[in-house]
């Protein structure tokens, strides 16, 4: 029924969609490589020669396309990745599309330091630089809306988010609490989807993947948008059905997931309206993941994760130097919802936020703001006996935050100094200072970053332990980058993460819950080499981590430098090779080093061998059938069927959750409109 509703919605849009002839044409100087490649022969012939020369220059290459891409993910000022006070990765739509990514896991595995592990309830979570970051340590932001659930602050990966509509992903591989608050302790993933001006048409994308024994995914993605005068409107939707895996799960008993029990479904709508100063965003997301519980019998369940997020924002340009931005947000989160489950919870967050940005002069800028939000939670089952930390079926928490950041550019070095202070009515205060020194020459840059960060206890944490405190993190990072020539760029960084009072789930039979442990963390380094030529692009990176001052037994592998479930070594290589104007061949290699799983039925920490995952995708673009732009591609993920599992990165006494088997994928995208 949901699918029929969705198809009707698609038909309605396609039938009613008429693009206005008043659309603005993108100036040649602002065209992207993709837009240039989409120009027809006739369009190129009709161009003035000077524009053609400019296009040829833009088509050429250069690593500068990436290095000069402005980002605000790590700072309130718009800076290039080399200037930003953070360790940054940027992934473009071109890379995502060409690699044939099935979901965010495929994309993020190419980023240094990021891995994935298994939590429970069929949920795949994220690891950052060796640390299990599933609960509130990494923040996911989509078009300005935070996506961590409001009960445990988790993220659910695996056939969840639509990668076809992503314009760019900006990732801070380090703390972001000074800007983003209590869920950005170890990283921020900022996803920017297509705006109306990028779309200017209706784009329909279908993708199908077949694993060895069962369907991998069936995705349908629809995006429509336009820009008329200053008004930019976009509406995107996504319908997905898939399976995490089709392999046999070794729980207390063997369970064959090809018979079901690993299914996923996702529905997503994303509406954006924007003009010069005003912005509105509304996103609805409904994801479900099946899971199987096996003892002597086998039971299968489905957990749902619903999010509705909306925002109104206004940029008030008081003077040329002073901009004040008021913003209001409403978000409702219904995570881990299970049919008849006693602890089913809905949490709503109401946020008011005001930010002032003052450019003192061309070298000094100051940004400051206050943020106030209320979380209102309620148990949704009528006959529920579960209670919140206050002993009631409803609960309310308030948080007041203030933050300030100043960027000071000098001839010797650039300073970024700032901090964020949070006051929560239940667990008290938390403070995240930040000092960054950056220096950039033509070919070389350095960054020295000291960041305080914190993770706020979630509503779900407080249910188990009303006395829990925020965990506090200190991170030191040093990065050096070298532009070898106009086509190659090399970066290297070292990091030291120290987490004090980590909030840890423990489970000793009848004694379980959340508590603050003493300390944990990791240290390591990351190397990344990127190249971009007119034949395509490639990147290779290596990341290393090992535990640092860990006293948390639930994360400890005795006698080893690994944290549980954390591979110390990872190598990722990804390339897009344009064989001609239409065909791009894209191999991706991910080597995930050996790691250790916690004991399940005994006391042994077993080694999980390293595996090389090889994905290949061939993308065919710039075709037209009856003047309709068509793009398609096919490929295979895990070519050599290595079946790398998702390891539970804590003492949960659970066997690794099987990864997907080799999956053949086909994708077709068509566009309507001018």
């Amino acid at each position, binding site marked *: 029924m949901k699918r029929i509703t969705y198809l009707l919605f698609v038909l309605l849009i396609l039938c009613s969609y008429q693009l206005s002839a008043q659309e603005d044409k993108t100036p040649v100087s602002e065209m992207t490589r993709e837009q240039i490649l989409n120009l027809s022969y006739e369009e*190129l012939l009709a161009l003035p020669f000077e524009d053609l020369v400019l296009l040829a*220059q833009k*088509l050429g290459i250069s690593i500068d396309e990436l290095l000069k891409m402005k980002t605000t993910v790590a700072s309130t000022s718009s800076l290039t990745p080399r200037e930003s006070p953070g360790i940054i990765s940027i992934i473009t739509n071109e890379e995502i599309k060409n690699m044939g990514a099935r979901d965010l896991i495929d994309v993020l595995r190419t980023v240094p330091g990021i891995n994935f592990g298994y939590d429970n309830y069929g949920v795949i979570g994220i690891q950052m630089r060796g640390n299990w970051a599933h609960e509130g340590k990494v923040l996911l932001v989509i078009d300005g809306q935070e996506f961590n659930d409001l009960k445990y602050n988790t993220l659910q990966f695996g056939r969840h988010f639509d990668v076809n509509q992503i314009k760019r992903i900006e990732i801070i591989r380090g703390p972001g609490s000074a800007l983003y608050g209590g869920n950005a302790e170890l990283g921020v993933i900022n996803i920017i989807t297509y705006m109306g001006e990028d779309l200017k048409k209706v784009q329909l994308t279908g993708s199908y993947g077949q694993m060895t024994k069962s369907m991998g995914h069936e995705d349908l993605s629809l995006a429509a948008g336009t820009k008329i005068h200053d008004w930019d409107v976009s509406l995107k939707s996504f319908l997905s059905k898939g399976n995490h895996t089709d392999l046999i799960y070794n729980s207390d008993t063997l369970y064959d997931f090809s018979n079901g029990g690993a299914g996923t479904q996702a529905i997503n709508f994303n509406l954006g309206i924007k003009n010069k100063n005003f912005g509105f965003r509304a996103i609805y997301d409904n994801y479900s993941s099946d899971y199987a519980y096996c003892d002597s019998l086998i039971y299968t369940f489905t957990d749902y994760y619903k999010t509705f997020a909306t925002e109104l924002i206004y940029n008030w340009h008081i003077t040329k130097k002073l901009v004040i931005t008021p913003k209001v947000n409403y978000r409702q989160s219904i995570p881990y919802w299970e049919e008849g489950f006693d602890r089913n919870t809905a949490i709503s967050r109401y946020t008011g936020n005001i930010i002032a940005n003052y450019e003192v002069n061309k070298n000094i800028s100051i940004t400051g703001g206050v943020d106030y939000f209320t979380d209102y939670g309620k148990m949704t089952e009528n006959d529920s006996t579960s209670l919140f930390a206050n002993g009631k079926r409803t609960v309310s928490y308030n948080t007041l935050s203030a933050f300030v950041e100043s960027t000071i550019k000098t001839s010797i070095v650039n300073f970024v100094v700032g901090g964020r202070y949070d006051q929560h009515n239940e667990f008290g205060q938390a403070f995240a200072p930040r000092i960054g020194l950056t220096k950039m020459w033509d070919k070389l840059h350095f960054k020295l970053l000291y960041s305080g960060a914190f993770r706020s206890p979630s509503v779900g944490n407080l249910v188990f332990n009303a006395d829990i405190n925020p965990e506090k993190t200190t991170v030191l990072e040093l990065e050096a980058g070298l532009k070898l020539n*106009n086509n190659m760029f090399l970066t290297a960084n070292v990091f030291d993460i120290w987490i004090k009072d980590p909030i840890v789930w423990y489970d000793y039979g009848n004694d379980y819950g959340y508590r603050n442990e003493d300390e944990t963390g990791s240290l390591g380094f990351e190397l990344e080499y990127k190249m971009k030529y007119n034949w395509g692009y490639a990147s290779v990176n290596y990341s290393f981590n090992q535990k640092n001052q860990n006293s948390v037994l639930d994360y400890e592998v005795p006698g080893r430098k690994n944290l549980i479930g954390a591979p110390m070594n990872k190598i990722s290589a990804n390339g897009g090779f344009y064989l001609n104007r239409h065909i791009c061949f894209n191999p991706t290699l991910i080597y995930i080093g050996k790691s250790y799983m916690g004991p399940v039925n005994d006391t042994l920490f077993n080694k999980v061998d390293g595996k090389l995952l090889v994905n290949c995708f061939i993308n065919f673009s710039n075709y037209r059938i009856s003047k309709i732009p068509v793009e398609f591609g096919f490929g295979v993920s895990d070519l050599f069927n290595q079946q790398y599992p998702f390891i539970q990165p804590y003492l949960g006494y659970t066997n690794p959750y099987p990864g997907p088997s080799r999956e053949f994928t086909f994708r077709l995208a068509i566009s309507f409109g001018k």
Partner: protein
Amino acid sequence: MSNIKCFLFILFFFIYKPFVVAQDDKYKSIFIYNFTKLIEWPADKQTDEFIITVYGNSGITSELQALSMKMKINNKPIVIKQTSSLVQLPPTQILYVCKDKTTDLSTALNDLAKKNILVITEKPMACKSGASLNFITKNGSLGFEISPSNFDKSGLKVNAQLLSLGTVVN
């Protein structure tokens, strides 16, 4: 297959880079079309057809043929010819010398001087061998060098706009 073999198999694609992008040839052909708008051939050398002769083998030939189907130059149909020798070069307005034929061009091109032929090459420093226009790849981007002195030698007039769009060499 072992992990190492898999790795080597894929690594091959990362280090093997002969994927010549046909995109360059398409742009070169459209560049040539635009060149003709900014270059003047002597009136006494006018013919009923605009002839472009390609010396050597390159993807540019098929792109120029595609161009000739769609466009005219100075209101004349475009004819694309191919030659394997410069000794008995048929009448032509443009001679396109492919990269593999650019070696030791100096003598041959000296013979072509004053024949009002625009010589276009695609090899670094080829203007020193007598080419008037030379396609280059600078920082991976397609561009061109232009030699006013070689234009003078060939008896062709070049518009100042063309000089401003290319890299002037002498």
